[in-house]
């Protein structure tokens, strides 16, 4: 019985670890490539708890990393960013990529495998700052995003 519980606990931990690996890989890659450190966001734990309970817009949890003083050149670093995103997002499906020279911002959205709760990884890179977010979405919310993918991409790009 005890062994079973331990096995279950290990399995759950492994699943949780696996679920977040793309987020962690991307955060590490951004720090390494663009010389940026994450900005501390106060009350993040409280906000995440609220999201898990209230599920606003079908979100069932999130992780967020905000970077400042990013050494990112929207004109010259595009190819490097594409490579970083392709590597970090391994295991996810690309959905939208928006490159805006007008706003000097790049946005990427990836989705996880289809399930009751599906992961969406969103990353935006602009002049001097970047945001990486992983959201656990209900299927309803995911379908809404799939219905208008270009709009979803532009929304996050703003």
């Amino acid at each position, binding site marked *: 019985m005890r062994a079973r519980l331990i096995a279950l606990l290990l399995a759950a931990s492994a699943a949780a670890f696996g679920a977040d690996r793309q987020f962690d890989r991307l955060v590490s890659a951004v720090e390494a490539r663009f010389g940026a450190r994450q900005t501390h966001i106060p009350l993040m734990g409280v906000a995440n708890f609220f999201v898990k309970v209230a599920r606003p817009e079908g979100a069932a949890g999130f992780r967020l990393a905000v970077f400042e003083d990013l050494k990112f050149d929207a004109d010259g670093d595009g190819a490097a960013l594409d490579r970083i995103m392709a590597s970090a997002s391994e295991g996810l499906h690309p959905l*939208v990529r*928006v490159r805006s*020279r007008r*706003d000097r911002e790049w946005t990427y959205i990836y989705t996880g495998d289809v399930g009751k709760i599906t992961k969406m990884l969103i990353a935006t890179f602009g002049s001097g700052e970047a945001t990486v977010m992983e959201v656990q979405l209900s299927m309803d919310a995911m*379908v809404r995003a799939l*219905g208008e993918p270009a709009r979803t*991409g*532009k929304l996050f790009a703003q």
Partner: protein
Amino acid sequence: MRIAIVMVAAVLSSAWAQEIKLPPAFDKLAAKAQETVDVTLDSNMLQLAGKFLSDKDADQAKAKQIVAGLKGITVRTFEFAKEGEYSMADMDALREQLKAPAWSRIVGVTSKTENTEIYLKQSEGSRIGGMVIINAEPKELTIVSLSGTISVDDLSALGGQFGIPKVDAPKSKGKEEE
């Protein structure tokens, strides 16, 4: 109608990887564009979308049936700051891939402000195995690729789903409009 068809395909649309290769000229276009938007919906995502369409509603049921036959949708949009930043010759390498006998052009509309071309890939019977839509405006270029089985008539039924506007698609493989 032309814009509506492009929008339908845009909302629905990974055929590049399987059948159509984006020519290197497109990278140059991306470098010149003010904004580019790439949308990729693979079969997994399309099936997910299909699960949420109701069997009870006739329109949704039809759309669900159509989505079930699709393998993927890819959309690339380039927005330019001013006119003349691209030419139709930039599309030549893409058009080279859309030639008979596998592909046929069913719509070609040319006007002063907009050019639209629709190409179909032949499949069994009346079904088609893929569709490519090129919509060129002075400051915007959109290329859409749908892979999977779909009939031209199905395009109309997809209107109103996933936020897709109602579409009056060409009724069948007809003559080109010029």
